Structure formats: C-alpha cells, structure tokens
C-alpha cells in the first residue's frame, strides 16, 4: 500500500498549494446546495401543521447545530492525529476548525432561541439540545482561550490537542447528563429537529442545506488552513516562492 498520499498530506508546501486548488471545488457546490436548500425551504416547502411558517427556521438552525458538532469532532480528530503522529498540518487543521465551529455554535444558539418563540412561546428554554449547545460553545471558547494563552505555537498546538481530545470524550457524557437532568423536570416540550414523518418537500431542502453547509465548511477550512500552515513554517525556502508570487 502506497503511503505517499499520506506523506504528501503532511507536507506543508503541498497542502498550501493543494488547498488553494481544491477550494473552488467545495465553494461552488456549497453555494449551489445552499441556494437550492433556501429555495426549497423558504418557498417550495408547505407550512407546518402546528407551527406554520415559523418552522422554516429549521433550515438554518439544523445546519448550524450540525456544523457545531461536526466541526468539533473534526477538530478533535485532527488534534489527535497531530498529537499521536506529531504532524504539524493536522494541528493546523484543528486550529482552523475552532473559529468556524464556535461561530456556528453561536448561530445555533441564536436561531434556537428565535425558534423558541413559535415553538414554546418563550425565547429560551433550558432544553437538553440548547443547553448542550451552550456547553459546546464554552468548550470551543476554552479551546480557543487555551491556544491564545500559550505563546509558543508548538506547546499551544499540543496542549489544545489534549484539551480537544478530553473534550470530545466528555461531549457524550455531558449531553447525557443534560438530557437526564432535563427529563427529571418534565420539560414542557423537547425540541424536535425533524418529525419522523417529514414529507420529502420538507426533508429534501433540509438535506440540501446540511450538505451545502458541510461543503462550505471544507471550503472555509481550506482557506484558513493555508494561513495556519504558513504561520507554522518559519522561514522554509518554499515560502519564498509562494509568497512573492
């Protein structure tokens, strides 16, 4: 089995160039999917039986929540790879993920709160999903805070990697405890992201949005990654050609 592709992915100059070439292949399909999802979700999908047009917030809340979790997991995996095999590019990936994930966690919280009014008649409910999102935001902030607090890039990479791995192990535990806590107090309703019997006209735009946001994440990640990779290479010769170009 040839491992050259693996070694190439770990090579900063290769990644810097490759990421640039790859970005449009994710950016344009992402834009298409998101536009399609918006059209389907805002225009084509019929209003919900209970919530009327209010349910359309789903089409931005669900992708944001999905992003917040998916990005954290990606970050933790990249961090683990960087820690175990000491690959700088992996650490660069993890660093690139954090601001993206944190901002979408914030979006998930705001859209979740805005959805609260049509759903429950109140802006905030300590329901398990929203509470877990809030905790996830703090996990991101902690990760970013630790990175920011350590000057040496290598120590920052490795310390935040340990934190990310510890965090990702804790996410299911925290989520379970929040669900457990919530169930004790007979919360008025649990936010259901998707009813089991969602008609295709409602489901397809949702899937399009989820796909579109995932592609968008990769595109943005690739842009950030190039900057992170560059920052970790002090004065390697390949930078000279690339930067003065």
């Amino acid at each position, binding site marked *: 089995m040839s491992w050259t592709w693996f070694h190439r992915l770990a090579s900063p100059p290769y990644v810097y160039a490759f990421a640039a070439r790859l970005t449009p292949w994710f950016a344009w399909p992402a834009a298409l999917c998101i536009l399609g999802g918006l059209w389907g979700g805002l225009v084509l999908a019929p209003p919900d039986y209970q919530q009327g047009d209010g349910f359309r917030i789903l089409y931005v809340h669900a992708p944001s929540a999905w992003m917040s979790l998916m990005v954290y997991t990606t970050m933790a995996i990249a961090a683990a790879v960087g*820690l175990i095999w000491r690959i700088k590019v992996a650490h660069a990936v993890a660093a690139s993920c954090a601001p993206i994930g944190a901002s979408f966690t914030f979006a998930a919280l705001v859209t979740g709160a805005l959805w609260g009014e049509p759903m429950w008649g109140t802006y905030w409910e300590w329901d398990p999903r929203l509470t877990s999102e809030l*905790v996830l935001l*703090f*996990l991101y*902030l*902690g990760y970013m*805070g*630790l990175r920011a*607090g*350590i000057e040496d890039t*290598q*120590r920052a990479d*490795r*310390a935040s990697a*340990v*934190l990310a*791995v*510890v*965090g990702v*192990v*804790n996410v299911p*535990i*925290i989520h*379970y*405890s*929040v669900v*457990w*806590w919530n169930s*004790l107090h007979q919360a008025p309703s649990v936010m259901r992201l998707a009813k089991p019997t969602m008609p295709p006209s409602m489901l397809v735009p949702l899937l399009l949005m989820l796909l579109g946001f995932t592609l968008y994440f990769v595109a943005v990640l690739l842009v950030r990654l190039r900057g992170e990779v560059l920052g970790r290479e002090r004065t390697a010769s390949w930078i000279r050609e690339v930067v003065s170009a």
Partner: protein
Amino acid sequence: MNAGTSAAGTLPAAHAAGTAAPAAASAAAASALEAAWLALLRDVQLAFRRRAQLVQPLAFFALVTMLFPLAISPELTQLRAVAPGVLWVAELLASLLALEFLFRDDAHDGTLEQYALSGQSLTWLMFAKTAAHWLLTGVPLALMAPLAALSLGVPVTALPGILLAVIVGSVTLSLIGSIGAALTLGLKRSGALLSLLTVPLSLPVLIFGARATQLAINGAPLLAPLELLAALAVLAVTLAPLAASAAVRISLE
C-alpha cells in the same frame, strides 16, 4: 529546593531499582507505585508546613455559601429549595480555587521537571499528586458541605447522603481539575482560563451531585445519581492521570 526534595531524592533510588531488573515488569510497576506513594507523602508533608494555605478554599466555600441567604432570603424554606444548587456551585468554585496549589510549587522549584525526567511513570505520579491534593482540599471541603447544608435549612437526616455525594463528586472534580491545571501550567493570569476549561467538563458531576442532594433532602433513596457519580469517579481515576501527565510533559517542553 532542599526543603522538599528528601522524598524526591529517593526517586532515583527507586528508578535504579527499576532499571536493575529490566526483565521484571512487575519490579518496574512496583517502583512506579513506590514513587507515587513517596510523591503523595511528600505533598502531604509539605502542605502541612503551610497549613494556613489549606484553609483558604474552605473559607471561600463558607463565603460563597453565605452569599446566597444574603442575596435571596433568610427564610429557610426558600433556602432549602435552592440548597442543592448552592452547595454544589460553592463546591465547584472552591475546588477551582484550590487547584492553584496542585502544581504551583512543584512547577516553580523544578520538582515537576524532576518527576517528568525521573523515568518513573508520570501517570502514577500525577495520580499521586492529585490524590494528595484531594486529601488536602477535596475531603475537607466535602466535610464542610453538611455544615453548609444545615445553614441552608436542610434536615439533619439528609446529611449522610449529602456527605457521601460530595465526597464521591469531589474525587472527579479534583481529577478533572488536574487536567486543566496541567494544561495551564506556568501561564500568567491562568485563573479564568482554568475555570473556563474545567467547569464545562465538571457539569455532569454538578448535575448528578445536585440531584443526589435533592433526593437526600426529600428523604428519597439516592442510589441512582450516586451510582452515576461513582461511575464518573471511576472513569476519571482511569483516564485523568493519563491526560494530566501528557499535559504536564507538553507544558514542560
């Protein structure tokens, strides 16, 4: 450096004992345990020379507990309703404060580096340091919880259950805290960052502990949350020293 290294000085001896019998893994394990035990004794001895420091987290706990009646109401019925939350929040905050003592002195005088370089299992040494820290701060804090509970109008019958829950919970809090402390070793103004890192990870302890306390107050059996607290403690004991030792090595590099 001389005051505290009497125990650390024997680490090389234990190390030599370990390398003298390379084929016997059990000998190495025994010396790791020996080293851990010595580290624990050392930490306890040193802490007793500065007993005044140990009182600070306890005073903080009492202070925080006192804030709530003043901020809410002197009525015991109202206080009893919020007692589980107050006790556990105060417990969490006080244990955060106490974390400062875990690595500070050893990082300062180079003992931590000695531990990392000693060839002994750093994981066991981290476990020993955290265990010592728990004995010195976690247990006293836990012993204060019943007193604080009484001041919040909790019936006497609830106290044994509360004490048990807090003791088990404090084990996990100390272990999770050791990870955060190791990651932020030597950083300036790390207090807020340490809290930001440690608190989200400690939420399950807070949730199950407060629930156990509520059940104890109601006179109901609290086995379910207690078992969950115990499970968290077991998980923490197994995994946290590993993470802490990785973090210490990274911080010392």
